[in-house]
């Protein structure tokens, strides 16, 4: 069992994610540089946060067109659990693995703060340990985190139960306060907030237990006993 954390030039939450996966939740993980091949023996993929390619052109767009993403797409089709956090979410959207777009926050500024999100789908590989509507104190940090989709797409997201997390407060102008979504099949999840910054009590000013459940869900999915 292995989790691949894919590192692009400019990724900057890769080491944080690796630490939480491997040291805190004992999930065997590997940092995979974007030009290297995906290891054969992986069971899950995480696209971490950061500024891949310095957010040039548009956040996530260059990384979304890199060769490793075509491999990620193949794995997505095979049903492998894939999580994109922050810039990782932006990449998944730009790659067409998830619908919609991520726009500049309505404040036009980068926002780094603690907030709460609400679990709206507890069937995904990353949320199966949650109760529906459970709240998660979590850190956000982004400049282009406002989820946007047209009305038709939003309807579909609702109909297919693709809205995974919503913000408990108005934060950046996101459509339907969406903080995270999944694909139709539910195996590919993207979220703007940072679970890897929120799952250890020493750095979480509120309660780290709920955010931990994201990683415990993955343990559960992969059949790892904590």
């Amino acid at each position, binding site marked *: 069992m292995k989790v691949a954390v894919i590192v692009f030039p400019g990724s900057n939450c890769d080491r944080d994610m690796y630490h939480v996966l491997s040291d805190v939740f004992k999930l065997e993980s590997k940092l995979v540089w974007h030009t290297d091949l995906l290891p054969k023996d992986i069971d899950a993929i995480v696209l971490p946060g950061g500024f891949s390619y310095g957010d040039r052109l548009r956040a996530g767009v260059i990384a979304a067109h890199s060769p490793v993403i075509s491999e990620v797409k193949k794995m997505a089709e095979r049903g492998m659990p894939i999580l994109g956090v922050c810039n990782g979410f932006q990449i998944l959207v730009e790659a067409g693995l998830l619908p919609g777009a991520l726009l500049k926050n309505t404040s036009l500024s980068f*926002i780094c703060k603690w907030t709460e999100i609400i679990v709206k789908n507890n069937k995904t590989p990353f949320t199966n340990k949650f109760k529906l509507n459970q709240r998660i104190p979590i850190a956000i940090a982004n*400049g282009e985190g406002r989820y946007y989709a047209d009305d038709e797409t939003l309807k579909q997201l609702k109909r297919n139960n693709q809205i995974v997390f919503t913000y408990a407060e108005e934060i950046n102008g996101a459509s339907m306060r969406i903080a995270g979504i999944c694909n139709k099949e539910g195996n590919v999840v993207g979220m703007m907030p940072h679970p890897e910054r929120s799952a250890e009590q020493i750095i979480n000013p509120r309660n780290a237990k709920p955010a931990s459940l994201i990683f415990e869900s993955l343990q559960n999915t992969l059949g790892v006993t904590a």
Partner: protein
Amino acid sequence: MSLTPPEFGYLEKKIGRKPNPVELQIVAAEWSEHCSYKSSKKHLKILPREGKRVVSGPGYDSGVLDVGDGYVVTVHIESHNHPSAVEPYGGAATGVGGVIRDILSAGTRPIAILDGLRFGDIEKDTHARWLFKNAVRGIADYGNCLGVPTVGGEIEFDRCFTNYALVDVAAIGFGKKEKLIRNHADAGDCVVLIGGSTGRDGIGGSQFASDKLEAENRSAVQIPDPFIEKLVIEAILEARNQNCIKAMKDLGGGGLSCAISETADALSVGIELDVSLIHKREENMSPSELMVSESQERMLVITDQEKLSTLKRICERFHVPYSVIGSVTSGSVMEVRLEKEVIARLPSEVVANAPLLDRLAIQPKYLENIKLTQKPSTPENLSETLMKMLANPNIASKQWVYTQYDHEVGIRTVIKPGSDASVLRLDNNKFLSVKIDGNSKHCYINPRQGAIGCFDEACRNVVCTGAVPIGMVDHLQFGNPEDPEVFWTFKESLEGITQYAKYFGIPCVGGKVSLYNQTNIGPIKPTPLIGVLGLIETKPLIPKKIQENDFVVLIGETKDELGGSEYYEYMHDTIGGKCPTVNMESSKANQEIVLELISQDLVKNAHDCSKGGLGVAVSEICIRNEIGCVISLDKIPAQKLRIDELLFTESHSRYLLTIDPKNIENAKSLLEKQGVAYGIIGKFSGSNIAFKDGNKRVISVRVDKAQERWLNSLGSLVSHG
């Protein structure tokens, strides 16, 4: 932008001939005040630099402190004032980039940034507001992209910074002691330039920064590219892991001229290089432009022949441009060629060591006049005064600023910005507490006591998190040193800092001097900035939720010292009087007892009492905890003072502790034993911030109203143009 006649004569004598134009450019860059410290170097020797945790090495660009278990912390501070005053976004951003590379130079990973920002009166001056907003954005865009958290800092507004900006950036690094770069070089080693390409930006930047800011010189401002910097960080750290780096230096002020001459001089070797080999972003650059360009995101690395191919492979893997520009030679000469032609040949010892100056220092006349300032009268409605003070940009919450900075990346930030000091967890289960403090208003009134006060305040802030101060960095910012009155204030501040550092046994592990901070309206107020690092061996004091009936304990004496206070200057427009002074003995005793109470788990919350005095400090605790309080002014340990003086004097060495009723007796007996001045001045309760003089309520304001003012004032001010 050139040498003075005596300097020219000195150079000629040293090299035994007339320098050619390229040589002159190289020397002029390196002998600028900014690079050579020619005015300040003689005086800086008085700072204590030794300490049991201090690790020193040749040519380190940052201070190194041993934090045990085989780990070190590195720290450095720099400013980017002139560029930020002209182009605040790029100036502030490249300020971050430069100091980060100093941390990288030691072979450590940058783990935190703190910034100190100073501008004119943003309430009235829209230009100051523009500078402020864009400097913040520059820091945010750069630091956020790098993935180095901006965990703290401080901001001050004062009319003396009109049409100007002070942008100070401190950076912290962390790493294994065994991985520190032990700078050394041998003849035959390769000299490699790694990172961003060299262009015409920042030409003459160090000389630009070594003169009064009277004309805007945009070409002297550097252009930021955080993406390249991020790639450089990862490539350099990988090269360090694979032992490919024998010596390393950041390219900052003075560009290659400075990096080459200082490296050769520090390592006692010669260096020869061919400027045609440098990777450039512009055509037809002249050799002197290439030597003095301050293009950013560049590192100079010395590696041996054997490791060169590994180093090249690492750079290619991380998509970092590089060029092998020369080699190390025996002897001590720096030789610059354009292909085969030698265009400069100078002893590096001469280039790296400008002739030092003896500047005249005379006590400024203004100091006599401001002593005569009349005390303003007490306002009738002190509740209103407190509310105004909470909305004062110098006091109001800085959340508008720090929410734009990623302060969480790296998952080390235990105590976040907005608190007294910020706390980072380290890999050896210890914690590092960091804070920078400055106060131009106090330093103007008394440059020595003001500087000591900044030092004391920074120490108090780290002590409030349960940390013992282990090292400091200073950044001495003054006007034109050729003015004897300015130079006197520099010397006074430096002596004050030295006095404090020696008394408390806190070594100075790095620093910077920035002079010529002066515009057409005159010099800035003296603005020494002090950064203090504190170490927490077991656990930090993470503030606990305050409950009804918790006690408010004030440690330290409250004195009639309102000169330079926010109360005098903001409320009464009064500059003058007596500024706060530090009694070292009682300050030390207060620090010790606060640390003792924290270590015995008797404290729920510790808060430093500084800007805005007790009135503001108490309000801040109430606002953060959304609880009221009743404070009895007659319980404050103080001489006979007026009510407004008790409330708003900024006397140093004072701490506000919140103590659970069940611990108050224990705390009292420890405080009595230590023999410090203290008072149990009140309790938290209700939903009003209330101060009583005897039975009379002199202040009563609702916590939610105060919170609204304090939290939102700065944000609403800047969002309106």
